[in-house]
């Protein structure tokens, strides 16, 4: 009985943590948009840009800045005014937000996941 109790207690967080950060985004609706960076934050927990694409300005969630830097997407490349192509998935609940799988900027493709 005691062993069962202990096993149950330790199994609990495993079940809870199955939830993942990408599940908020609809990966069945991949978007590929080209537009202009309006505003950018090279910040923890995730970098982000305001991104003016034809017909709509999006809030795009990128990757943690340390990961972006390691993959060669440095702060200067995300300057407002820069043209970029973003492949991303829309947020299921927030119609203005999407999360980028990759970004193509200055002819360079950077994976963000």
């Amino acid at each position, binding site marked *: 009985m*005691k062993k069962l109790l202990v096993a149950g207690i330790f199994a*609990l967080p495993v079940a*809870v943590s199955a939830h993942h*950060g990408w599940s908020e985004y609809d990966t069945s609706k991949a978007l590929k948009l080209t537009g202009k960076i309006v505003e950018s934050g090279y910040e923890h927990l995730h970098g982000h840009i305001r991104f003016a694409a034809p017909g709509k300005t999006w809030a795009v969630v990128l990757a943690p800045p340390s990961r972006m830097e390691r993959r060669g997407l440095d702060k200067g490349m995300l300057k407002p005014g820069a043209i970029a192509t973003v492949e991303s998935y829309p947020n299921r609940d927030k119609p203005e937000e999407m999360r980028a799988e990759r970004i193509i900027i200055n002819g360079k493709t950077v994976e963000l996941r």
Partner: protein
Amino acid sequence: MSPAPGGALGALEASGLGQAMRQWLWLYPSVETVHLVGIGLLFGSIVVLDLRLLGFSRNISARTLAKHVLPWTAGSFLLIIPSGLLMFTAHATEFIDSPVFALKMGLIMAAGVNAALFHTITFRTADVWDSEDMRKLPPPISARIAGAVSLLLWISVIACGRLLAYF
């Protein structure tokens, strides 16, 4: 995501410290690491005592064990609280709006109350139930409940901390 304007929490987020937490490349991960080490120390030290209160390892005196582990439990807060406050500073307005954050703080307080009740009531009589003879029997039900509640609460606190990233 971006700092919200206005209010004391908005000001906290916009402060140099808040900005540094978001923008210095290695600060946030370093602070997170300190927080995690603190949690390891807190949970590790508290689990062994909780298991003892549940009736495991009764060859070890609960009082001796408590004397050994509880200073480490208390010390772990020196790592956890400053690092937690720093992370709060980075995204104060988001944390304050998060039901998971409120739940986490509530659970921490509940764990504190549980510990306080145990130490002021049940542990006072430990010289009886923790004596060498009495240790052949399981600890009193109040000690077992305190241990189980503590385990459940701290596991829930850790789960809430992790879920903060996903809600």
